[in-house]
């Protein structure tokens, strides 16, 4: 009995060790900080997180980079909206990426969490559209290389509205006329969420009343201490919003998807949307034209401009390779044009931007966006979007009483959470 159990133990032990030895080919490399032979043959390594669209657009650029520098690039495809969160949680563990693609309004939050590092564009900063570089700057440091610029504008169905409306009243009346004539169902389509509205899509109208979010410093950046959301212009906008929803111009039940679908089927002469929906309209055979949103309150209706770019992780294992990739390849014309061609968003590099102006739609959106301001990228914005959206949602749903009161309560609440 004892002998057989001893044999069993011996048998297991011997087999285990021999199996472990077989896998010895994968002997672990010591931690990178004490690396001696951790680097593979040839160049270094690079780990990039991108969404599927941009990964497809950049396959050639990445291949060229790999060839010219001998680096092994690992592209990890992630859902665009979760890249910032994933980076924040995974980077400190040392297993995060070196380079990510992201939206410029994430920068404040990511910097606050210490997960992105500044990238010095050097003399090439002048080669980009100024608004793009401004958007990627936070507290004086630039945090990445911009690749695309996007903004919303007024898209009209030229069959139902041959002329661009010069004023807001003209838009409303021509929209109403189309509905009354039976050729359209809605005077205007703006996709919003029934609970949280959509401050981003409604911002141009808000700006036309002279209602910015924060005060702007001399260098063009936002002053987080100067909340302008409660100022007179904004309160006037709140009143107007209440009125529009009572008249049926702004409809809380129309979501983004419904708005796109209805416009594509010709149910309305006007919609406020961005370049991302144009392919759907083209497929549906709608004859559209892009123009600026007419002012409702007297000031120009400037939309928010969104910039996407590539950033470097503060915990990157390969910071030098990452910087090289960004400043030499992503900032180059090939990469900028490739991303523009698949995403239909204007490129940030001025030379590519000008080449893209040959595309009518890009030129039209660009013209509208030229007067726009980037979305604030400060960390406090997250708190803001939600309360702002809910207040707008309440006004649109005709709840909470006087729109001005609802709006001022919201502004006060945001002010107190920014302070304390």
């Amino acid at each position, binding site marked *: 009995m004892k002998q*057989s*159990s001893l044999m*069993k*133990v011996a*048998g*297991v*032990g011997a*087999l*285990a060790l021999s*199996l*472990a030895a*077989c*896998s010895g080919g*994968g*002997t*672990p490399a*010591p*931690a990178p900080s004490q690396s001696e032979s*951790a*680097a593979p043959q040839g*160049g*270094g390594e690079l780990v990039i997180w991108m969404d599927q669209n941009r990964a497809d657009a950049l396959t050639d650029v990445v291949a060229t980079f790999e060839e010219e520098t001998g680096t092994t690039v690992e592209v990890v495809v992630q859902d665009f909206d979760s890249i910032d969160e994933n980076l*924040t949680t995974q980077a*400190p563990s040392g297993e995060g990426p070196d380079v990510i693609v992201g939206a410029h309004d994430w920068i404040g939050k990511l*910097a*606050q*969490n*210490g997960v992105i*590092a*500044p990238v*010095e564009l*050097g003399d090439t900063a002048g080669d980009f559209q100024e608004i793009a570089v401004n958007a990627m700057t936070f507290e*004086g440091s630039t945090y990445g290389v911009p690749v695309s610029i996007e903004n919303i504008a007024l898209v009209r169905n030229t069959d139902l509205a041959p002329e661009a409306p010069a004023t807001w009243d003209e838009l409303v009346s021509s929209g109403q006329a189309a509905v009354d004539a039976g050729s359209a169902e809605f005077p205007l389509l703006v996709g919003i969420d029934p*609970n949280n509205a959509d401050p981003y899509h409604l911002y141009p109208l808000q700006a036309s009343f002279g209602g910015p979010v924060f005060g702007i410093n001399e260098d063009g950046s936002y002053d987080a201490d100067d909340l302008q959301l409660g100022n007179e212009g904004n309160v006037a906008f709140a009143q107007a919003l209440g009125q529009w929803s009572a008249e049926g111009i702004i*409809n809380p*039940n*129309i*979501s983004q998807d*419904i708005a796109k679908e209805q416009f594509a089927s010709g149910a309305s002469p006007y919609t406020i949307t961005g370049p991302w929906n144009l392919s759907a309209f083209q497929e549906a055979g709608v004859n559209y034209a892009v123009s600026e949103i007419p002012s409702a309150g007297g000031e120009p209706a400037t939309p928010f401009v969104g910039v996407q770019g590539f950033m470097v992780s*503060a*915990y990157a*294992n*390969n*910071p*030098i*390779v990452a910087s*090289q990739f960004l*400043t030499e390849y992503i900032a180059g014309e090939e990469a900028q044009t490739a991303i523009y061609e698949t995403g239909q968003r204007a490129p940030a590099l001025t030379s590519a931007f000008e080449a893209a102006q040959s595309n009518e739609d890009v030129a039209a959106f660009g013209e509208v966006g030229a007067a726009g301001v980037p979305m604030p990228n400060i*960390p*406090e*914005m*997250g*708190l*803001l*979007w*939600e309360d702002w959206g*809910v207040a707008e949602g309440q006004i649109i*749903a005709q709840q*909470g009483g006087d729109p001005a009161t609802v709006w001022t309560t919201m502004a006060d609440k945001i002010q107190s*959470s920014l302070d304390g």
Partner: protein
Amino acid sequence: MTTTVSKDSTATRKRSISTAPPSMKVLAVKILFLAIVDAVAVFAMSMLFFRGDWLVLGIVAVTTLLVNIVYLSPGLLPGKYLTPGLIFLAVFQVFVVVYSLYIAFTNYGDGHNSTKEDAISAIVLQNTQRVEGSPTYRVQLVEGPGGLGLLATSPEGEVLVGTQQEPLQPLDPGAVTLDGDRAVAAEGWTSLQQQDVLQRQQEVAALQVPLSDDLADGFLRTMDARNAFVFQSVFVYDEAAGTMTDTTTDTVYADLGNGQFETEGGEVLGTGWQIVVGPENFLYPFENPRFGGALLGVAAWTFAFAILSVGLSFFLGLFLALTLNDPRMRSRKVYRVLSILPYAFPSFLSALVWLGLLNTEFGFVNEVLFGSANIPWLTDPWLAKFSVLLVNVWLGFPYMFLVCMGALQSIPEELTEAATVDGANGWQVFRGIKFPLLLVSTAPLLISSFAFNFNNFNTTYMLTRGGPRMEGVTENVGHTDLLITLVYKTAFEGGNRDYGLAAALSILIFIVVAAVSAISFRQTRALEDLH
């Protein structure tokens, strides 16, 4: 992998398990599996050894030893069956709960993302700014007696070299080899090849070569090993005093024990670090009465939702099972298939489809069934609650239907016949015989269904995201929020992600669900006596 049991009588069975010799085939298979497990463990332990992860190494070693003992010893039969399940339970449940408990006592979240060292280096790095108007230097990394250095060529063609300790010194042009506008080699210094640079990236990125002896002039730093710029650190960390100083405004920030750099006046630097804050997160609902009140409301709704979901879907499923069990019902098979269909679709998908169906203006329900009425299914607080319940019952009743069908068929016919002979009518038969026997087998399922619906994130979140928002509360709490959706919103949505608070709330949910389940299971033991 059990040993073969000899065909002795039960009295001697115990003894014979240990004395019966196992067949060679069984023994060989057992040794092979154990060896594979051991090999994996040895490999893992060697990796952990190199990384210096002593705690995990110890845990893996002890676990492997226990596994070997359990499977190699004769006897310990329950252990042999339970070990794999126990290991998975420990890894996927026990560890998760313990780690959440740990996080609940910290302030992990936005602004407190990592350790103090990381926060300090992040603050310094982010506030290292290029000096206005400074030129771009073309550089080559070199190694010298003083360590890693930069061989810099200014735009005017002047060649300088320096290291972290020695400021830039000009070099004699004769001692330098130029490649275009960049010096690539100098006497007394070894130029680093691309290979070497790649292996020392962290070092290269951290290299700061002072421009001169006066630190106020700034330092040279390269990010791509080709160009360097002159930077200045706006924020300086004084290690001895433990303070971070803003050199432009001369404000001194100190660590006052709150996991961030702050001044006495209350100015805070955004980048902080994780610290243990004790029971602060658990006390948050009590210290914040409006949130506490909302939390109680949400908890009440969660209980109501879970109980009503289970109850309604159970009775609906039972009703269908009874009616479709009756041989007098025609085309039973068709009805059975239709009843199971909702179960076949993923709940995620169904919830999104219902979201479209219940749209106030464009939804099928309002357009077709109610003739273009504008009933706010998802935006009115009470109607939203009703809608969520409706969708959840729709998703859940097929499961109950299947379970009840099976349980009903397992009730012996003789009992029903005997009762009918004794003069009982249908309802009395059901109430006195079928239902109690049914409960015996379905009670555990009802309890687990309750626990599942208590945490039924999918349906609620997909349909209403927590529903029309409650007014008067700072946090984003809605009328159809379950405790779990509230936790999700606290952790992942909203301006400031607060994982510590979310973990504390999840622990509270865990305690509630565990307590309710434990009590219910104990009650169901009384039902067992019926059998």
